């Protein structure tokens, strides 16, 4: 059966292009390799624990080492 090309308005041409773009994008996203949340979680936890000791806001560092904290006045004996 011969299908005569219909006259398309500009609007439907762009929604066709838009729909193609969306399908294209979803195809790319469907293909990525994913890991399990349990593995991802344990990796995140490992990163936190390895770096915890270097995290001043987490550990709290003494005023003498933090330029933003005011040092206690020292008494001259």
């Amino acid at each position, binding site marked *: 059966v011969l*299908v005569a*090309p*219909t006259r*398309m308005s*500009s*609007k*439907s*041409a*762009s*929604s*066709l*292009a838009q*729909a*193609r*773009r*969306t*399908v*294209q*994008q*979803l*195809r*790319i*996203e*469907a293909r*990525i390799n*994913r*890991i*399990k*949340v*349990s*593995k*991802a*979680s*344990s*990796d*995140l*936890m490992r*990163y*936190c*624990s*390895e*770096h*915890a000791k*270097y*995290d*001043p*806001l*987490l550990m*709290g*560092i003494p005023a003498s080492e*933090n*330029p*933003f*904290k*005011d040092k206690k006045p020292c008494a001259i004996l």
Partner: protein
Amino acid sequence: MCDQTFMAATFGPCESCGKPSPLMNIYIKNEAINYCSFCVELMACQGLQSGESVASLKRECESLKKKLEEERGKLNDVELHQVADKIEVLGALAIKTRRVLKGHGNKVLCMDWCKDKRRLVSSSQDGKVIVWDGFTLSKENGISVPCTWVMACAYAPTGCAVACGGLDNKCSKAVAMHTNYVSGCTFTNSDNQILTSSGDGSCALWDVESGQLLQSFHGHTADVLSLDLAPSETGNTFVSGGCDKKANVWDMRSGQNIQSFESHVSDINCVKYYPSGDAFASASDDATCRFYDLRADREVAVYQKDSVIFGASTVDFSLSGRLLFAGYNDYTINVWDVLKGTRSSILFGHENRVSRVRVSPDGTALCSASWDHTLRIWA
């Protein structure tokens, strides 16, 4: 024939008819097609002849979305906070205001730290951009930008330059030109390139010297409000978030949108990478902050409380990634335990909305910017 209006990021010879015109940059089967709007229409008409239609594409779209949900669901074997049950609860944090920076005449909309860990730059609705010494509170520099609502400012890696942008649609002396406001900007790993996000729905990478557009990123369907560059070890990607409630991850070289996350129920105001680069957090008008793991390709935590009902505008991680600082429209900063999903503490002090929070490069302090015209440094 009436042409439709579209946002053209590039102008040049059409790859089909050769005539110089504004080009629509689309991807078909992974190939970039840069045609003028007339040739796109012609191509679409030919597509129709071969039996394809918007309806059939929409059906494929729905089935792909379902497949994505299924794939992501299969790997959701446990929740992050369950895995984190075995670690110790955080002790009380001794963080309080150490400095209040006064000097802006109106809402402070953005700030950024310099890599030297003491200087910072802030921008305000009064059109002023100020460089401060965080230790001494002295103002090192102040410039007036010829527009109000300077929404974005960033420090260059060498500390020698500052970029800013806002309602004038430009970023710094017209290095970057968008067709709507500039909501965010950041230098890439050198002083020579700037990445911007815009109300026009796109992000773009620019060469600072020439002002040339190096790459544009299309995919958001509404204003893009924030972007963040991946930590340098993990490569050339960045994440963006916007009013379409989506957070997208992009490849900087190809312009390709590689991952997309849609779980917020309102505008995403801010996105920030976790320090390892394997995850990122987002802050939204829906009063939640969320945490997404890139390798698991899904949301892995939601930071919310019944008592927190105001939108979150900004987030940043502490150095180890264990703490998430989030600024809200109820004038507070909530500190969340990233792994356990609980709130660790609340920082009070600002007298209006908190627009931006940033941890200093060495992690010793947090700086917050607010609509109350001040910035605070917490440590």
